[in-house]
């Protein structure tokens, strides 16, 4: 078993190396792609180049521009001379952005000429598959066998008292995350085979995906803070690489940079926290740290906890470091599904959950976690209400759901948070991949204002996405219901009544915007271009199969794991991990503080369930009314908001409440101003001082050299003066 544990991260690492070293040689991508329709739709001259210009991207505020005459002409088959610079061994030629398209256009375009052949996926996907199998073994061993595994590979750092081993620990918390990460990871790999199959950089994608799997697995398997930090940074790197996968597109490159920088801000805090732990406790191993954490005084523990949480805020995109996640939608959809729904963003939740003994010692830190969680939840939901890009809706939804998890962690509902993490990983991954399928089918269109009526043409996508959306909205039976309701119930039971109310409101909003998206995409009439409509088709099996596979746990996970509430399987599994922190976060005077009645279907527990479910149902009903029955209703509603605030509120929501603009102003422009001021200081004051000294020396020299007249009489006078001085010194002063 120990060997399996070591292999779980090692296999994707090997896959990465394989993909990098051998991958390029395995693909054969032809120089000329398929023929162009002279369509008004986006120019999709898919020569299979990497670095695609995503013509389909629409900015939030406007309509998608119809490609101009030159753009259409440029992408016609006759404009192919630029391909001469391209070569077919996978390296990127100097292709103008308009000619690059990374989206797979599988099947719908007639092809003349050779088809691309992709073989570089076989080994990476195979290795990840193998890693998944091992993960399942380990999961079963931990969860059903009740074991806890510990594998030490070797001593990495041994420097005096400081000792760090490369060691893996698998307890039930890690096992739960293994389940999510491995499963969704494997499905995304399979999905990508189809999704990326017109892309020139195919092998590169799988290389990065494998590297990411390795990093994430390292993160959750590590048994000390340093290994966690290594994995943490590495997933940040992979996020950068993958978001900026189409690196020739400026917005993608910028988004990648933004993700990395914002992440880094959080990582800085995290790093400080780790250093503080080391300084105070002398060890970074989880077991030892958690044993000794009680010996530190409250202020230190709070500081450590807050710093660790800062890292989580960055990695899991909570306010105020949430700004990178929506922009990260520039990456290919599998990336969004994997990293930004199911795995990387969970790292923050994992960190706080893993460090629960630290947080349990610090009520102040827990309040901060819960507060930020609740605020981010409603903040992100408020933005998601008005977004028009499918992926952006899902991105903000992710931020909001992650906020739910932090909310749960902050109030001490550890198991509920992890439960929600697991179920969210499944259904959000499903939703993202489904949205990718939609985009694929709509030939690149992402704006839901230009979709509609797709459910007849894309049956399986539609069905699975509805399943995912029901889960997200918290409808009973589906996974999201159990996990979300448990969080809300814990909030109520532990005495956080205000947060509970906010949580219910957010549940309503979540259901609303999710089904707004569904209705606008799949119901009603098609609102896009006619030619695009003609070719809408269901996606390839490699893309649909993961959707169906994920729908299964979406439906069943809640039932399997969470029934009965507070007593289900998952509670039993995770009990030991959180054993010491169960009491943390319970407010005095709340239900949980008194005698613990356990869950009563006909009592408070059942009532709370009902409230949660109703909120979800109400959201769906409102979305139905406004987007299926009566499309003009939203506008009227906005007009009717008192004090004429409606349009302003709408604009604020669409513009993400101007957070990005504030950051741009304060940090970017402010940074530039500061840099200019410092430059001025350096050039004028410091250089001025240095130059000033030189200037003084020059002037002084200029003056002094006039003493040398070359004339004897002047020198004689000098001598006489000296003589006078000597005489004075000896005769008058008489030393």
């Amino acid at each position, binding site marked *: 078993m120990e060997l399996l544990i070591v292999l779980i991260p090692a296999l994707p690492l090997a896959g990465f190396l394989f993909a990098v070293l051998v991958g390029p040689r395995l693909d054969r991508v032809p120089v000329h792609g398929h023929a162009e329709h002279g369509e008004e739709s986006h120019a999709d001259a898919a020569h299979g180049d990497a670095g695609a210009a995503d013509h389909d991207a629409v900015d939030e505020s406007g309509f998608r521009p119809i490609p101009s005459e030159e753009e259409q002409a440029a992408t016609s088959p006759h404009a192919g001379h630029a391909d001469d610079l391209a070569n077919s061994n996978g390296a990127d030629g100097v292709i103008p952005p308009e000619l690059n398209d990374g989206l797979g256009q599988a099947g719908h375009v007639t092809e003349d000429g050779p088809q691309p052949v992709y073989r570089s996926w076989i080994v990476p996907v195979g290795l990840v598959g193998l890693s998944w199998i091992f993960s399942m073994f380990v999961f079963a061993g931990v969860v059903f066998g009740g074991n806890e595994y510990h594998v030490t590979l070797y001593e990495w750092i041994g420097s005096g008292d400081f000792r760090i081993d490369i060691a893996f620990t698998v307890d039930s918390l890690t096992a739960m995350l293994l389940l999510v990460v491995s499963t969704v990871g494997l499905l995304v790999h399979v999905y990508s085979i189809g999704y990326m199959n017109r892309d020139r950089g195919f092998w590169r994608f799988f290389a990065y995906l494998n590297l990411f799997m390795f990093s994430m697995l390292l993160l959750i398997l590590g048994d000390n803070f340093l290994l966690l930090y290594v994995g943490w940074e590495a997933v940040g790197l992979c996020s950068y690489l993958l978001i900026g996968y189409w690196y020739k597109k400026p917005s993608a490159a910028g988004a990648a940079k933004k993700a990395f920088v914002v992440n880094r801000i959080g990582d800085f805090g995290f790093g400080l926290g780790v250093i503080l732990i080391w300084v105070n406790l002398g060890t970074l191993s989880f077991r030892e740290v958690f044993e000794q954490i009680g010996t530190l005084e409250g202020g230190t523990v709070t500081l450590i906890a807050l710093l660790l949480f800062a890292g989580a805020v960055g990695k899991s995109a909570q306010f105020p470091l949430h700004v990178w996640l929506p922009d990260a939608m520039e990456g290919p959809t599998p990336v969004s599904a994997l990293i930004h729904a199911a795995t990387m963003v969970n790292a923050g939740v994992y960190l706080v959950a893993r460090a629960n003994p630290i947080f349990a010692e610090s009520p102040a830190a827990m309040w901060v976690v819960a507060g930020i969680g609740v605020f981010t939840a409603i903040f992100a939901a408020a933005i998601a209400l008005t977004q028009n890009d499918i992926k952006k809706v899902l991105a903000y939804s992710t931020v909001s759901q992650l906020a739910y998890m932090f909310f749960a962690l902050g109030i001490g509902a550890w198991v509920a948070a992890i439960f929600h993490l697991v179920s969210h990983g499944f259904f959000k991954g499903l939703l993202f991949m489904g949205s990718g399928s939609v985009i694929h089918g709509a030939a690149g269109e992402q704006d839901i204002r230009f979709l509609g009526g797709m459910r007849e043409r894309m049956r399986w996508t539609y069905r699975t996405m509805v399943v995912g959306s029901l889960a997200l909205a918290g409808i009973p039976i589906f996974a999201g219901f159990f996990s979300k309701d448990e969080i809300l119930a814990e909030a109520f039971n532990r005495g956080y009544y205000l947060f509970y109310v906010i949580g219910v409101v957010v549940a309503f909003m979540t259901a609303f915007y999710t089904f707004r998206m569904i209705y606008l995409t799949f119901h009603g009439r098609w609102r896009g271009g006619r030619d695009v409509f003609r070719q809408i088709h269901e996606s390839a099996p490699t893309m649909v199969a993961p959707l169906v596979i994920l729908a299964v746990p979406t439906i069943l996970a809640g039932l399997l794991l969470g029934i009965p509430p507070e007593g289900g399987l998952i509670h039993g599994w995770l009990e030991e991990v959180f054993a010491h922190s169960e009491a943390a976060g319970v407010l005095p005077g709340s239900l949980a503080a008194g005698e613990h009645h356990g869950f009563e279907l006909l009592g408070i527990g059942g009532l709370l369930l009902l409230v949660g479910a109703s909120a979800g149902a109400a959201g769906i009903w409102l979305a139905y009314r406004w987007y299926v029955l009566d499309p003009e209703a939203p506008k009227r509603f906005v007009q009717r908001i008192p004090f004429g605030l409606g349009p302003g509120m709408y604009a604020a929501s669409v513009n993400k409440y101007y957070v990005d603009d504030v950051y741009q102003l304060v940090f970017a422009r402010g940074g530039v101003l500061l840099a200019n001021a410092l430059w001025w200081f350096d050039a004028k004051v410091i250089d001025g001082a240095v130059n000033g000294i030189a200037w003084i020396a020059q002037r002084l020299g200029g003056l002094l050299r006039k003493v040398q007249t070359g004339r004897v009489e002047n020198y004689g*006078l000098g001598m*006489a*003066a000296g*003589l*006078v001085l000597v*005489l004075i010194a000896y*005769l*008058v002063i008489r030393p």
Partner: protein
Amino acid sequence: MTLRNIIHSAIAMMVCFGALAGMYALLGAPIVAAAQVLIYLGAISVLILFAIMLTQAGDANLPAPFHRQVWLAALAALLIVGLIGWGAVSTDWGAAAATVAVDLNAIAAALFTDYALPLEIVSLLLLAAIIGAIFLARRPEEDERAN
């Protein structure tokens, strides 16, 4: 020193030397007086007059003006005089009341015994001075060769 005409200054200098010779005699050092007359009045003054003549071809009445720094010079000279004079006057030299005459035999003896080295060195110095003066003051060779 304030005479305008350089020849007049040279003549005044000679008169001064003569007076000094008289003073030496009064101080009971006739040998020094004799040496003064011989050397200064006989040699150096003549030398100076020759130099004046050689360099003032046809212009013996050339005025000798003052510098711009004459006032500073006067100040410096005054200060020097004042300080040295005051120092000299206010020091108790332990002087005897009357003068002591110089014993010529003693000087001669000392000159060739105790002070033999300085004597020799001075003679070397004079030799060097002669050679140097001859070399420095000769006419430029090129003119003669060109001619």
